[in-house]
């Protein structure tokens, strides 16, 4: 990547859930950055901590979850220690959010127009009529036909795909610099998914908005993201340019993940699968969390946890790439 | 069979969950105390409040034993006729409990029969019965009980009415509360009706009545038990309310509600114990039964927790 100063920087983020049976560490030393206008894909199995990273950035972790360590910087300024009220001013205005299920994300009792104008008027100095005019503009921009008539409709009068377009408009209407999109297409019909992703990508490029795109769909990532972070058991295990991570993954988990995606250009007899399952939070093994399932596991992996190491075109949290290690087969 | 049932009970999850719930154990203890005191009243009460010979007007209006002018012979004080309040409460609780239990049994009988019939037969019978239940449910049950009591009172000559007043109250409270049972049983019956064992029984050629009683009924009794427990508290309160209003049990058989009503007349002159202690007894009984009912519902329906 270029040396542009990052828009968002996450340093050694740690999220804990205190529980009756001890504290669960949900995110462990998560570090990454997003440059202005960049789209960072975040992939991993369910429970790997992708969505939680997004929730931690906008500080809407489900209680009792809390940020227990590390820093989050937006445009060079720490935001992880802001008061709730200061954070509220950042949400929507600086960092927008898109949730998974458009059927439940919109308040059923307010018209979409009202939800748009109240968001804009909270953050921007707009009169009622200006806000309404902009709201219509946004609905047009996200591809709602006859926006001027539909603005006074209630969410239930829209289809799922249309509702997600409204959600996108809501996330972008106060012109944030960054959007955290948490599985924005998972709940949609397959036929709609591509349209919504294309829309997101187009708007991000047009507005020069950065995006953190959380998904478990490698196809979506490959199509949309500039860089990608692979997460496993609350840790980033590999991060790098999307082309490299997809074509030449370095971490054994990423390799397994990519092999489990059916290629489009040729038939394979049987898709590879990774044996075993991701450990639960209260049963993460010492050393590298992937060690029980890793085909290339060796002694050091069982005792010592690797940080992200230079692995050529990407960075991977794997001892295979420690220059001090003798080459393993 | 009974012994087997008992041992099965102590092995069951129900017993386990009971012994682990402090609220349930405490409520059960209070409920047992109330019920025990009520049932054994003729033998353990300090005084027979109905035996006029033992009453002495010079004992009237004694405050509770711990007050300055209290008398240890009257632990909770005495009323205007020198009657021991504690003994009156124990005998009153007997009447309250009797009416409550009988009323619940009556609603259960009516409700389960209607629910089974409606659920099993379906069609018009179902529609008509459930519509009646709906209409009745629109009205607060205490109002229904009052009306039933009033109508019976009007229909019968005074002397006859006094003789059977207890049954009238039981009938009025029972009839005011059957729809709840009917609705629940109907719901469960609809589910059971289409299960294979019922179809099999039908194929064998068992009669409708027999299938309902021997196959469907036992399977819908769980929820009925829960509602019955929760309704016991309601029935006791309903009786107390009716008696407080002066239309419940006859004055010759005072219940807790009657005691509260009578005591209420002395409230303004400061003899609060005559009305407050029966009130406390009533609340203790109802609250413990209700908490037990809540616990039973949660224990039988782990999904609801």
């Amino acid at each position, binding site marked *: 990547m270029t040396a542009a100063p990052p828009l968002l920087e996450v340093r050694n983020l740690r999220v804990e859930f205190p529980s009756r049976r001890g504290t669960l560490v949900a995110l462990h030393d998560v570090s990454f950055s997003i440059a202005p206008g960049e789209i960072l894909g975040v992939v991993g199995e369910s429970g790997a901590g992708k969505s939680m990273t997004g929730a931690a950035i*906008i500080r*809407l972790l489900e209680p009792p979850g809390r940020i227990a360590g590390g820093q989050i910087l937006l445009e060079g300024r720490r935001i992880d220690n802001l008061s709730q009220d200061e954070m*509220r*001013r950042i*949400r*929507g205005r600086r960092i*927008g*959010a898109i*949730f998974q*299920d458009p059927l*439940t*994300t*919109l*308040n*059923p*009792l*307010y*018209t979409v127009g009202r939800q748009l104008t*109240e*968001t804009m008027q*909270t*953050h921007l100095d707009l009169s009622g009529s200006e806000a309404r005019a902009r709201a219509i503009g946004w609905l047009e921009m996200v591809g709602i036909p006859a926006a001027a008539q539909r603005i006074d409709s*209630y969410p*239930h009068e829209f289809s799922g795909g249309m509702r997600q377009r409204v*959600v996108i408009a*809501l*996330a972008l209407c*106060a012109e944030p610099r960054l959007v955290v999109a948490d599985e924005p297409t998972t709940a949609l019909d397959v036929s709609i998914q591509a349209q919504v992703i294309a829309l997101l990508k187009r708007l991000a490029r047009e507005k020069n908005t950065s995006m953190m795109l959380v998904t478990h769909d490698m196809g979506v990532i490959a199509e949309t993201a500039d860089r990608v972070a692979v997460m496993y058991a609350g840790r980033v295990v590999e991060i790098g340019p999307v082309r490299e991570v997809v074509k030449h993954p370095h971490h054994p988990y990423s390799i397994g993940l990519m092999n489990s995606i059916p290629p489009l250009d040729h038939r394979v007899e049987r898709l590879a699968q990774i044996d075993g399952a991701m450990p639960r939070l209260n049963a993460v093994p010492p050393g590298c969390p992937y060690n029980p399932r890793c085909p290339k596991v060796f002694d050091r992996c069982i005792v010592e946890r690797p940080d992200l190491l230079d692995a050529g075109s990407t960075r991977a949290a794997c001892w295979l790439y420690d220059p001090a290690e003798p080459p393993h087969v | 069979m009974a012994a087997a049932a008992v041992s099965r009970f102590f092995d069951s999850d129900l017993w386990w969950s009971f012994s682990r719930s402090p609220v349930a154990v405490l409520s059960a203890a209070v409920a047992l105390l109330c019920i025990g005191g009520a049932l054994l009243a003729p033998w353990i009460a300090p005084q027979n409040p109905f035996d006029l010979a033992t009453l002495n007007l010079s004992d009237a209006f004694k405050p509770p034993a711990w007050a300055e002018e209290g008398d240890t012979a009257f632990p909770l004080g005495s009323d205007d006729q020198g009657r021991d309040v504690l003994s009156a409460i124990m005998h009153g609780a007997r009447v309250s409990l009797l009416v409550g239990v009988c009323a619940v049994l009556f609603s259960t009988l009516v409700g389960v029969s209607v629910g089974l019939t409606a659920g099993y037969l379906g069609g018009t019978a179902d529609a008509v019965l459930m519509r009646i239940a709906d209409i009745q449910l*629109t*009205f*607060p049950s*205490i*109002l229904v009980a*009052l*009306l039933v*009591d*009033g*109508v019976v*009172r*009007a*229909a019968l000559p005074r002397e006859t009415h006094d003789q059977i007043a207890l049954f009238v109250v039981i009938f009025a409270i029972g009839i005011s509360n059957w729809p709840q049972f009917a609705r629940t049983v109907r719901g469960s019956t609809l589910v059971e009706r289409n299960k294979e064992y019922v179809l099999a029984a039908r194929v064998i050629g068992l009669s409708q009545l027999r299938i309902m009683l021997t196959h469907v009924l036992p399977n819908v009794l769980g929820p009925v038990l829960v509602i019955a427990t929760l309704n016991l508290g309601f029935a006791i*309160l309903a009786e*107390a*309310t009716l008696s*407080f*209003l*002066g*239309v419940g049990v006859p004055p010759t058989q005072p219940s807790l509600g009657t005691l*509260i009503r009578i005591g*209420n007349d002395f*409230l*303004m002159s400061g003899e*609060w114990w005559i*009305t*407050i202690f029966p*009130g406390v007894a*009533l*609340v203790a009984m*109802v*609250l413990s039964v209700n908490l037990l009912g809540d616990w039973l519902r949660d224990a039988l329906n782990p999904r609801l927790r």
Partner: protein
Amino acid sequence: MFAFVLSRLLQAVPVMLVVALISFAMFAYVGDPVSIMLGQDFTEAQRDALVRDLGLDQPFFVQFARFVGNAIQGEFGLSYRLSRPVAELIAERAPATLELASCAAAIALFVGVPMGVFTGLYRQSWLSRFFLTFSLIGVSLPTFLIGILLILIFSVWLGWLPSFGRGDTVQIGSWSTGFLTGSGLKALVLPAITLGLFQLTLIMRLVRAEMLEVLRTDYIKFARARGLADRSVNFGHALKNTLVPVITIAGLQFGSIIAFAIVTETVFQWPGMGLLFIQSVGAADIPVMAAYLLLIALVFVTINLVVDLLYYAVDPRLRADRGASARGT
């Protein structure tokens, strides 16, 4: 909208007819109205004349139709006990009950809803715990005991408030009100609290449960993610959604305020319809009971209608569904 109201009204008619039938059956067949009205000494001829006058020799349906016709005009005959027209008695007593019930309803609503919202929003605060414990007691205490306790504390021990009656009333046309005199207002305090307390605790618990449910939803999280002010999220988005189920149950519960007014009026010797009714039950005064029954049914049907209309006003989804089904049929 019109079709909706009309269909609701049509549903109410059979309910009213069933109640009228019960009412009429009581009127016609319970006890012996003729001998009660004639008193001790009468001749056979007088008796026959009265039977003809009352139309008791007519067929059942003719009698019933006449009963309904009279009822619609507010004509219920003479009270056995007081030998005065029932309509007059009820009209005389109605203001007392309506003023008491509306005050109780206002207390239940204006105290219960805020308490429910508070306990829902600040679950951990000690005040919430206090409210919840208090509500448990409120639910378990029978109305008449609450009244007795309040009398004991505020009338007997503290001597602050009167324990019975309405105080001085002012006659405005046919309406006698206690709202305009000091003693009338003072007399209202204890009965209104007694009657409202149970409903208050019920509404509080209901609002709290609904609030907790709504606060967990995605659209509330999304509203926060858009940076809306807490006030607008909690009291706008969340509360409005809470109201939908609260309206139904609260509405139905207000019907039971009328029923429990009987008890409260007895405790406080409040000269309202409830006291009239209970005295009539004691004296087997069937015409008053029949009229009261019909009146209560009317109140309930009206409340149900109002609840439906409120529902319709609050929830746009309902409007659409009704519209669609109305168009469908």
